[in-house]
């Protein structure tokens, strides 16, 4: 008989209580894993948006609550483009509208000559050149059963599909590129773009260049990585805060559940702890027994919670509307966070019961009925 078999034997004594505790903890971990995967996907999308067309960073309106609300005027765009050290400054107008079953269809407006400099991977047809032409992302084309030669109507504006492009990100893949002037008309946003994508000239430090632009154009801000995305969009920050809040809640509620379970177990087994002390078990071994029982409970909950988290995300993705814009990312960090929360819950919840078990005098414990 090993120490671990003793641990599991004890856990199986109260099967219903153990199961309910595992379920309680795993619900928290399920939510943490699902949120982590979704937030990770959002960050990956943000990173793809920032680095669009091989840019070093993007310039957008300072203090914008949502990136799609950002406006950069033609003058500001021209000033950015004229900065020493800027090799390329491409303006993009991002207009989010409904198309087909996608309520967040991104229509991206770029000057055709600028789009041609660093184009997306065209898999069918060609890039748009004329005012009424559009190239669709693969997902958008597949979901709406469209091919080059078809006509799409976006916000009552008919556009000829001239090509299909491939993108490794759901945001682009479920959207389309059209000439900037056309998108401005559809969006009713003349003379502005959402952001300017800057490529620094060879030998120029992009970070120094971004800092200089921010200094001289105080109404604009620069974003070079997903971690800076909060400067122009608070969505990810809100998701991060939500994830943190849920993680803390999961730890607190899980710890309470574990503490309740382990205190009851310690109380019920007081006499047994007395027997173990009487036959020579050290207090530290008894503490290890209680802590290991709690940790085993929580690690089982972590496995269950992670599995249900993955299932939950996949379940959500079965809703077509959500699948258009949500692309979860399963990083190692997401799973590690689930396990860390489980271990924290186990340790925090079992510490007091374990302390109580150790503090019992052998005689006091043996007299317990």
């Amino acid at each position, binding site marked *: *008989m*090993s*120490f671990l078999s*003793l641990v599991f*034997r*004890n856990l199986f*004594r109260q099967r219903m209580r153990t199961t309910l505790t595992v379920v309680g903890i795993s619900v928290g971990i399920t939510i943490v894993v699902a949120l982590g995967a979704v937030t990770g996907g959002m960050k990956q999308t943000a990173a793809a948006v920032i680095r669009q067309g091989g840019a070093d960073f993007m310039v957008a309106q300072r203090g914008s609550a949502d990136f799609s609300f950002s406006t950069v005027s033609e003058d500001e765009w021209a000033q950015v483009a004229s900065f020493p050290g800027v090799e390329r400054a491409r303006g993009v107008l991002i207009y989010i509208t409904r198309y087909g079953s996608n309520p967040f269809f991104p229509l991206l407006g770029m000057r055709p000559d600028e789009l041609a400099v660093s184009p997306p991977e065209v898999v069918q047809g060609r890039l748009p050149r004329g005012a009424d032409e559009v190239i669709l992302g693969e997902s958008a084309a597949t979901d709406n059963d469209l091919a080059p030669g078809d006509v799409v109507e976006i916000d009552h504006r008919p556009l000829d599909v001239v090509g299909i492009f491939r993108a490794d990100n759901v945001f682009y893949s479920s959207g389309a590129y059209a000439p900037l002037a056309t998108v401005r008309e559809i969006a009713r946003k003349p003379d502005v773009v959402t952001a300017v994508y800057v490529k620094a000239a060879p030998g120029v430090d992009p970070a120094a260049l971004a800092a200089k632009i921010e200094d001289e154009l105080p109404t604009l801000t620069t974003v070079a990585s997903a971690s800076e995305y909060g400067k122009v969009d608070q969505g990810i920050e809100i998701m991060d805060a939500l994830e943190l809040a849920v993680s803390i809640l999961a730890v607190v509620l899980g710890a309470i559940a574990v503490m309740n379970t382990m205190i009851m177990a310690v109380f019920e087994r007081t*006499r*047994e702890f007395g*027997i*173990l*002390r*009487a*036959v*020579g*078990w*050290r*207090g530290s*071994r008894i503490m290890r027994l209680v802590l290991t029982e709690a940790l085993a409970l929580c690690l089982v909950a972590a496995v269950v919670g992670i599995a249900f988290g993955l299932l939950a995300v996949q379940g959500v993705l079965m809703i077509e509307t959500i699948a258009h814009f949500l692309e979860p990312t399963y990083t190692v960090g997401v799973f590690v966070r689930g396990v860390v929360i489980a271990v924290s819950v186990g340790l925090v919840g079992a510490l007091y019961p374990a302390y109580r078990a150790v503090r019992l*005098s*052998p*005689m006091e414990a*043996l007299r317990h009925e």
Partner: protein
Amino acid sequence: MSDAPMIECLDVVKTYEDGRIRALAGMNLVVEPGELVAVMGPSGCGKSTLLHLVAALDRPDSGIIRVAHHDLAHERNLDHYRARHVGIVFQLHNLLPTLTAVENVQVPMFELGVGPRERRARARRLLELVELSERERSRPAQLSGGERQRVAIARALANGPSVLLADEPTGSLDSKAGGTILDLLVRLRDEREATLVLVTHDANVAGRADRIAHMLDGRASEPVSLAPTRVAVS
């Protein structure tokens, strides 16, 4: 027998409830190595308290208790002492209900640092010693009272203690099962030269001991020890 006593209790006092209950009031007892000593007396005279103090399950208020050269008043690591120097058998077997007989016997061995295989092999040998090999996979609820006590004795012997303490080991058994347990304890004394202290209020049980210490009101009725007494067990 060596010159040094195996157990030495000198002027031991133990009170409960802030001194209102005086369980031991200057108890003296000396047990030589290899002896089987019975401690007799009526209920509440302090027999079990004495045993618990010798087993280091509790601490005396005053007095000296030396067991196998360990001065328990100054012993820092009582867990270590309990694990290696003393084995105890309770009136109610106190086996762990979820473990089988062979697993119960292994429990004390966790403190010896031996691996699971060795623990299992030793536990099987001990169950063989108490003639319970065929019941090694039975849980306490599946064993008779006498069998449970035999498992408890095997567990008490698990770590090769210097002293075996038995608190009314036949108290909850019928005369036949009690007789078997007594035979086993006497055999252990004879074959293993174990030092045994047996608490009982049954004169027949005490009669199997080498010496009897009578207790009354927290003291042994005779100073230190009594002359050997033999009473036939019917």
